[in-house]
């Protein structure tokens, strides 16, 4: 009964959301009463939908296996935390969460933006229709409320063990918050296009929301990457997996978008870029949902595959995106600014970087689609791997970073003077050259791309440190959060390059009580223990590692077998230090009683997380400072 009630609430909410959309299209949205009405209906329908979700969470906590989805993905033995996170461990439930977040952003927008704002009613309307589209998808093709009656099973089938990890429980929600957060930028862009009044400064209103969404997206991707690093046991942090790529594309577009926004919120220059990018970011987020949920692509992430779902999503996304683009073409003439972009101004460098970002998005899309096109024509499966992406991303990113440096020197709407070749740039140039030379000479960094990355990364960092210096001691105005975010970028480039250059691994065959040496570290296999966890049994190995200074520490890699699904997972053991991680995984036991143990030295990996964290935190603070100016 309660299950049906929850489903009914969702259906009711769908109807009310649709009503919001209809009102925002056919009624006079400049009438304050109409705006109030739309806003109120939206809040009510969000409240109904949220209640439905909360009931569902309650059902999951109480092991209500009459619900098919809960029976398939949860289990009585699970801790409560995982019973809740099992909701987003597969298709139906995660779609449910996705839509909750979509409407949540709308609700926060609806709540916090004043009814006088010119685009509010239509923005809420656009958010509503997007929500309706996904709600219908949920109810018609992937109903999480489906029941097994009259005989529910006694116990559930358990959540996939690799997903039984605190980080992975929060990775999807943060990522979804980022993905769907751009619905506000999208809604405002569409509202702006429908309105067709070029004097409205929609960019200013949308900046705050977009930067928050960007921070969540970055956090979601970083968490996913971190999880992959310690859980999958391959020691890498980015695999160019198709699903990683479809998350990377909206991120790239979003990054270009928030940069263009900062230009066009000052003058309406670059408005074509901002509108187009706002549509692109959200379309790419939706495209990601389509790729993952249609099951077109085999990946760690792919969900159950049902062609009908793919078709529905494709149709809905296609209609939404095509309508937006037709609207965009229709209004193209009012978007064109009568001011020209001054060459060598800050705007010009931002638009050049937009082109670089566009190239990266296009290349990633090519990498994702090429195997599909190939399969479609030749009926053979091929895959596009890391070499392709590296060959494109490394040079273009480095080139874009050079333009970033010029843009630090340049000013809004005025030409860059040649005086920019003055002290700060020359100092940072010499400094970076020196750093690069040192690492070449004394740290045996010899690959050309590593040196180039090191050089460019140091250039960014040193130049921005001087900006901070001027900010503190000469009271020169800068946006300090943007500076910190870019410092993060510089650091990220250096750490990725050094990680790639220094890291190494070896597989050892080792018996208990034997010692092997790898790179000045003595690795002793101390013993092996069998133990039992709450829902798995495990083999835990104990290794003592001694480095050349005589420091000892122990590492305990583990292999687990989960009872319910019979799946085997490897738990890595990581010894983290400032410069490197020592990363141990155990494989199979050989016939002679020795074990295969994989040892990896992963350098600068912590720095990668640190750089990303710096970018995320700067993003959040930047949004906060914008909000303060705004109100």
């Amino acid at each position, binding site marked *: 009964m309660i299950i049906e009630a929850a489903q009914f609430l969702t259906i009711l909410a769908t109807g009310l959301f649709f009503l919001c959309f209809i009102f925002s299209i056919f009624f006079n949205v400049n009438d304050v009463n109409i705006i109030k009405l739309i806003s109120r209906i939206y809040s009510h329908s969000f409240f109904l939908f949220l209640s439905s979700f909360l009931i569902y969470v309650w059902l999951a906590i109480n092991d209500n296996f009459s619900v098919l989805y809960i029976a398939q993905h949860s289990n009585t033995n699970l801790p409560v935390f995982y019973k809740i996170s099992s909701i987003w461990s597969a298709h139906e439930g995660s779609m449910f969460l996705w839509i909750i977040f979509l409407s949540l952003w709308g609700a926060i927008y609806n709540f916090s933006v004043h009814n006088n704002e010119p685009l509010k009613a239509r923005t809420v309307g656009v958010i509503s229709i997007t929500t309706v589209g996904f709600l219908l998808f949920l109810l018609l093709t992937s109903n999480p409320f489906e029941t097994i009656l009259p005989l529910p099973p006694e116990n559930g089938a358990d959540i996939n063990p690799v997903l039984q990890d605190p980080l992975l429980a929060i990775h999807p929600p943060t990522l979804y918050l980022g993905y769907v957060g751009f619905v506000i930028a999208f809604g405002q862009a569409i509202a702006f296009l429908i309105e067709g009044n070029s004097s409205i400064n929609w960019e200013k209103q949308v900046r705050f929301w977009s930067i928050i969404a960007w921070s969540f997206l970055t956090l979601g991707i970083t968490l996913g990457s971190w999880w992959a690093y310690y859980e999958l046991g391959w020691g890498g942090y980015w695999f160019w997996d198709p699903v990683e790529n479809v998350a990377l594309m909206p991120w790239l577009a979003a990054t270009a978008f928030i940069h263009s926004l900062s230009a066009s919120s000052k003058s309406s220059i670059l408005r074509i870029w901002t509108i187009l990018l706002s549509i692109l970011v959200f379309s790419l987020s939706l495209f990601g949902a389509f790729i993952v949920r249609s099951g077109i692509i085999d990946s760690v992430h792919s969900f159950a595959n049902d062609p009908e779902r793919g078709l529905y999503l494709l149709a809905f996304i296609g209609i939404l995106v095509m309508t937006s*683009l037709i609207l965009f073409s229709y209004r193209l003439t009012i978007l064109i600014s009568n001011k020209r972009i001054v060459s060598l101004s800050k705007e010009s460098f931002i638009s050049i970087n937009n082109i670089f970002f566009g190239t990266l998005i296009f290349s990633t899309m090519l990498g994702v689609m090429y195997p599909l096109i190939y399969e479609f024509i030749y009926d053979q499966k091929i895959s596009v791997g890391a070499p392709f992406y590296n060959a494109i991303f490394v040079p273009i990113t480095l080139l874009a970073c050079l333009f970033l440096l010029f843009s630090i020197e340049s000013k809004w709407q005025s030409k860059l003077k040649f005086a920019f070749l003055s002290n700060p740039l020359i100092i940072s140039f010499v400094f970076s050259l020196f750093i690069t030379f040192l690492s070449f000479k004394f740290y045996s960094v010899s690959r050309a791309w590593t040196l180039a990355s090191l050089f460019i990364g140091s250039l960014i960092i040193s130049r921005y440190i001087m900006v901070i210096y001027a900010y503190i001691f000469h009271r020169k105005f800068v946006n300090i959060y943007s500076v910190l975010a870019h410092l993060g970028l510089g650091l990220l480039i250096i750490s990725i390059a050094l990680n790639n250059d220094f890291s190494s691994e070896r597989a050892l065959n080792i018996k208990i009580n034997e010692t092997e040496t790898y790179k000045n570290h003595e690795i002793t296999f101390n013993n092996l223990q069998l133990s039992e966890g709450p829902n798995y049994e495990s083999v835990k190995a104990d290794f003592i590692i001694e480095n050349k200074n005589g420091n000892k520490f122990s590492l305990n890699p583990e292999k687990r077998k989960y009872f319910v699904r019979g799946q085997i997972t490897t738990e890595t053991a990581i010894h983290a230090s400032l410069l490197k991680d020592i990363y141990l995984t155990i494989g199979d036991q050989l016939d002679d009683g020795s074990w295969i143990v994989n040892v990896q030295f992963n350098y600068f990996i912590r720095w990668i997380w640190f750089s990303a964290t710096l970018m995320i935190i700067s993003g959040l603070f930047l949004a906060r400072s914008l909000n303060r100016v705004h109100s």
Partner: protein
Amino acid sequence: MTVFLRVFILSVSLMFFYFFYLYIEDDKYYPGASFQTSNMPLFELEDLYSDGVITNSDIEGAHLINVWASWCITCRIEHGFLVKLSSQGIPIMGLNYKDERIDAINWITKFGDPYKFIIHDLKGELALDMGVTGAPETFLINNGKIIAHYRGEVNEMIWSDVFSPIIKKENLFNDN
């Protein structure tokens, strides 16, 4: 310039969506299906019901092999369709995967038995050799060769889109 931009953006995006439409509509689009021919691994495993063993010689000719377990909920959803298939005279061998004997027998008693016989593969040995990743999975074998493999629930649609074409092509199950 604006005309060019309009036409360019609209046509590129339209082509993009059209391609995915074609791709999805295409018959090949069943990620769970694979048609690589391989030899059926040699096995000698216990019968679920008796102390006897079942070996390769028991599955000569064309057979379906269905991997299932009592803990597998999708198997329960699939089960009705298998019963229907067997009533049409399709021989299905059950591969009971990592399951307790008593649970498996109870399950069959409760939901019906579409299988000619059932192998009890407690440790998943044969399943491992056959490349099984979970349950349910279904194999089509002919004269000691695996000719089709489907990961996931087999239902009316999967049967007619994935299995029927190859059955027709190879001219199997005709003697019934």
